[in-house]
């Protein structure tokens, strides 16, 4: 069983922020790679997040501080982090009948946000985006939706959720403004930072966020599956409430387990990879301004290919790039090729990550690639579009 793409340049936007930094892979597999429960040899408390050796507990404190929160737990992924928040909100809601079971979510949300809501029997109202070609989320849309729900039901929504960088266009939502509105209207606020936490500097206090969900394997240079849920002192007791159950016959209790994260979370390689990558992540977010500038330069070069246009915000503020590419589609059609040819052509030339079958629109990322690698990607697009390399850019 071989990995066909082992030596390829990866441009899948899901993956670019999750690639392990140099040296971590070797240390990870050399030191920890033999056993699934690698964290658990010295576990005294029965929950991986409480482990002192390796220092998971300290790592979680570091993660919470890194994002401007007070408490963090690691989870099976960002979706589980959102589930934990919504589960806590659901329980809070049951004790607060003055709230409705509707939550406000942006129209660019990742599906797992909506699934987490569905799992917790929360209804979703959408704050709209502004449509083609930017698809931006406006903070005023949240205010309108919250007030509309209040008018219709006489009650406030249970939660507002904003996708910090959306997975479709790579737009940054105005989370600071949304958070301020939520604070003023007294609506708890969750920021889904799956695509940003670990890539872009984040301070959830500045966002007025009560909760932050993060994907370590998307954006914190870690192996999957791993995410974090970060919250404030005010909410940590609810989100991280421990089990209160005592079994009837055997009398057992599970007092250290946190039901909202399914008791005890990841106890192996993914969590360790994140611990090993943390220095790198803390350092790389400080370079974000320079990185996004070069990503925008790449996008501009892509737009020099005829009939290719970047969708979403301009200048772009995230590394996920979604191009509208009727020019590529037309070029392929003229060559008698279908949409699958594009991804296959790229793979054949050492670049993997385009969605198979797509050629009218393409979505990818060059985050963290060297200039040489970016040039390779760009020139392949030029080649398939039949476009010339502009003078001086050979």
């Amino acid at each position, binding site marked *: 069983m071989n990995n066909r793409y082992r030596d390829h340049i990866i441009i899948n936007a899901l993956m670019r922020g999750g690639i392990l930094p140099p040296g971590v892979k070797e240390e990870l597999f050399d030191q920890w790679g033999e056993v699934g429960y690698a964290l658990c040899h010295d576990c005294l408390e029965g929950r991986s997040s409480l482990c002192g050796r390796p220092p998971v507990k300290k790592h979680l404190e570091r993660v919470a501080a890194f994002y401007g929160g007070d408490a963090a737990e690691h989870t099976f992924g960002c979706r589980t982090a959102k589930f934990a928040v919504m589960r806590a909100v659901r329980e809070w809601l049951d004790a607060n009948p003055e709230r409705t079971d509707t939550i406000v979510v942006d129209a660019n949300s990742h599906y797992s946000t909506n699934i987490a809501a569905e799992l917790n029997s929360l209804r979703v109202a959408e704050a709209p985006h502004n449509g083609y070609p930017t698809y931006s989320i406006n903070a005023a849309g949240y205010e309108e939706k919250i007030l509309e729900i209040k008018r219709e039901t006489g009650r406030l929504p249970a939660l507002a959720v904003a996708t910090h960088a959306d997975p479709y266009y790579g737009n940054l939502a105005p989370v600071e403004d949304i958070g301020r509105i939520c604070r003023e209207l007294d609506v708890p606020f969750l920021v889904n930072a799956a695509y940003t936490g670990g890539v872009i500097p984040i301070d959830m206090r500045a966002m007025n966020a009560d909760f932050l969900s993060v994907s370590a394997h998307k954006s914190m240079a870690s192996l999957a599956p791993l995410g974090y849920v970060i919250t404030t002192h005010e909410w940590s007791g609810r989100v991280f409430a421990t089990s209160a159950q005592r079994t009837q016959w055997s009398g057992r209790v599970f007092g250290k387990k946190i039901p909202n994260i399914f008791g005890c979370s990841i106890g192996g390689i993914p969590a360790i990879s994140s611990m090993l990558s943390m220095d790198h992540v803390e350092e790389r977010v400080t370079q974000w301004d320079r990185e996004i500038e070069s990503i925008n330069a790449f996008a501009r070069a892509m737009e020099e290919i005829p009939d290719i246009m970047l969708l979403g915000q*301009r200048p772009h503020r995230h590394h996920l790039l979604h191009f509208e590419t009727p020019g590529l589609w037309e070029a392929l059609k003229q060559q008698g090729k279908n949409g699958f040819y594009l991804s296959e052509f790229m793979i054949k030339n050492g670049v993997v990550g385009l969605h198979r079958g797509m050629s*009218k629109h393409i979505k990818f990322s060059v985050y963290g690639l060297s200039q040489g690698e970016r040039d390779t990607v760009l020139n392949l697009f030029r080649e398939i579009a039949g476009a010339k390399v502009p003078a001086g850019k050979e």
Partner: protein
Amino acid sequence: MSISDSSGRTTCELAGLTACERIRAHLGMKHGAVGVRFIFDEQELESQTLPARPDKPSWYCQMVLQAAGGKQFTARMQDMSCPNSELSLGFRKPRFVNIKTGFDKVTQAVVIGPLENADVILLVLNNRQAMTMSILMGGISAEFRGEVAVCGEATAQVYHEGLPNLSFLCNGARMFGGYKDSEVVLGLPPIAAEKVAERIMALQKAGGALCGCVVSDLPREIIENFKTIGFEKGSDYFFGKLCGWSVRIYLDKDDTGRIKNITLYVLEKAPLDGVLVKPPFSTREREGWVDIVATFDTQSIGADLYSGGDKLRNTFTELICNYIIRTQEGASQK
């Protein structure tokens, strides 16, 4: 009883292939709809081009199922293996049993399969599809006894009463006809099929995302119509070229989900003064690009999205080519 339009033809032609295909697509039916037409006049048998008779005598319900798979038959009494079908379809009068057939004339043949000019339309459905049909029709009567089913309950009864009826089939149909345990047969007068098809169309127009931003939600006809005028389906709009401009067409819906407006976007990589537009088009600059945008009420510009064709293309061409002018040479990315 057969239902006729003003020209005297049975309305199956109005319900026709399109209506039945629409129902099939909406329900996701494995089988096609089957038309059944009664022929009472011997001369009619000779004067018309009709499907061939079956190779050997067969069960009527079996022929219906074969027709649901695409075959067609003109079946006479000699072609019937089941005596119940002979009686219920009016091929002969009962002599030894007390069955009321309702036919004044003796049936000479039944044409099984073609939907054109059919008197009854039969749908072979599973439970879920029957449920969906019931929702679409505001309820369905199911008068059945478990005997004389496809021929009697679903065909003859519907023919006589002009009302839909759902049959849970009979032993003959299940043992010899080839129907699965999960299958039922719905008999419809053609006019009822037409109404169901209209209801489906209305639902399709109203259904889907309110933002109008999911092209897959749109009725297939609209997508096909855009294709015929050279516009391809993107994920949330149609794109193509008119007069050298790269054009996007976005269909906006109102609060009830109906397509209300058409927004035309022309995207030009140029400075703001690189293009000149006339109202109702307006421009906005977007970091090296000019977005040229106008929104129109579909009716006000006479855009019939369901008919499409040259008229639709001409409507868009006129708007784009006459209202937008390129002022700066080299600005275009034609």
